């Protein structure tokens, strides 16, 4: 456990999964990854494939259709990985809460490890949130929800079959 967490937190590959967001959080995420903030100092790099991801950044409310795609993508991620919600939308839906296409806040059906609040959070807030998560993991105050142990394997894959998904 200690070895796994240490190995994971020393080298985080970030995958950015945005769905039905207003795009502000996505821009702030990209901002946080620019040379100005130089997250590579901490071994954090952006990757393009979900198979390479260690941290999945969620932004937006994931409306009725985007939600199914998001769950499918999450089910393809190799364990152990962390899910970090950027902005207020994944937690509560914020202003999209009463939209016709709103299903539920992702916090209600995705195992999110950490929330970085803000609308949108500044790059500094994102970095501070990631640092807090890394510290909590190393001190053992927090365990990744998707560790990949066999008994937990089924917990994470609520990819819905009904509702005309395909």
């Amino acid at each position, binding site marked *: 456990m200690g*070895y*796994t967490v240490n*190995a*994971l937190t*020393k*080298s985080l590959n970030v995958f950015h999964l945005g769905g039905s967001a207003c795009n502000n959080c996505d821009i702030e995420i990209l901002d946080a990854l620019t*040379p*100005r903030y*130089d997250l*590579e*100092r901490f*071994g954090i790099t952006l*990757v*393009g*494939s979900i*198979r*390479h991801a*260690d941290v999945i950044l969620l932004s937006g409310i994931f409306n009725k259709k985007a939600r199914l795609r998001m769950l499918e993508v999450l089910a*393809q991620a*190799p*364990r*152990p990985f962390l899910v970090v919600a950027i902005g207020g939308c994944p937690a509560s839906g914020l202003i999209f809460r009463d939209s016709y296409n709103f299903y539920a806040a992702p916090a209600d059906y995705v195992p999110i490890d950490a929330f970085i609040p803000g609308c949108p959070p500044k790059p500094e807030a994102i970095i501070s949130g990631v640092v807090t998560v890394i510290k909590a993991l190393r001190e053992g105050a927090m365990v990744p929800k998707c560790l*990949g142990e066999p008994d937990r394997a089924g917990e994470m894959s609520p990819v819905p079959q009904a509702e005309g998904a395909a």
Partner: protein
Amino acid sequence: MNSTRVFLEFLLFPGLLFTAAAGLLTSWVDRKVTAMVQMRVGPPLLQPFYDLRKYFIKETCVPEGGATGLFLLAPLIGFAGVTLASLILWRALLNPQVTFVGDLIVLVYLLMMPALGVVLGAFASRNPLASIGGSREIQLMIAYELPLVLVVLVPVIQAESIRLGDLVGGTPAATWSGALALLAGLACMQAKLTIVPFDMPEAETELTGGVFIEYSGPPLGVYKLTRAMMLFTLPVFLVALFFGGFVIGPGLAPKLWGLLAWFVLVALTVVIRNTTPRLRTDQAVKFFWGPVSLLALAAVVLAWLGY
């Protein structure tokens, strides 16, 4: 030469362990120089090692419906190839007398294996983006192998031997033909490492990792390690061919010159990577079959004439 010694050489000193460690450090140099070009601090020295350790705790995802055996075997093909290539190269550098006739040809073939492994793995993964990446990799190989063979021919003509041990003493880079061949060799090295401007098989922005898209966990780690080892071995190969290697000659000076030449080659590669956009596949083929091949051909003719 008994078999235990050969085995130890393969596993420890010029082989696996040494090449892996040196390759990871080289990839740190690559990332650090990149960071300096972008005016930032960059990763810590041991970051490539942390990355590799991370890959080995991750889950290995195998795509459904792909060729599972080949998918998992493909990373090892390139890994074995570059390890053997480094072993042969360093044995020739350390002790030019023990090499065998024609080892240069074996070396050129072995240095081709990583690209072949990547192509096999990409096609075995049954991912359309990986297939596109794989076919681009093949086209790139077809493009750069011709000038690369011509480049290798120049030191061979100058030394009139195809044994690596006879080549490492001379310094063809100081002649006209050698300098031209080295220039063409630099372009080939850039393409062989599939880094910008020749990174179309991976194409982060359009193929999102391309040939590696379906790989996760240890197999991906082996791929990254293979690439790091290639980033170390290919400049060593050029140094051995054109600058006389690291170890030949009395005293410390030849070793330092070799090291300096190696570092300049790596730094040049990284700077080119950071200052050029990605070419299309057809542009890369035209580039290699046009100017680079002509340059290499001119170098061969000059070497034949004795310049």
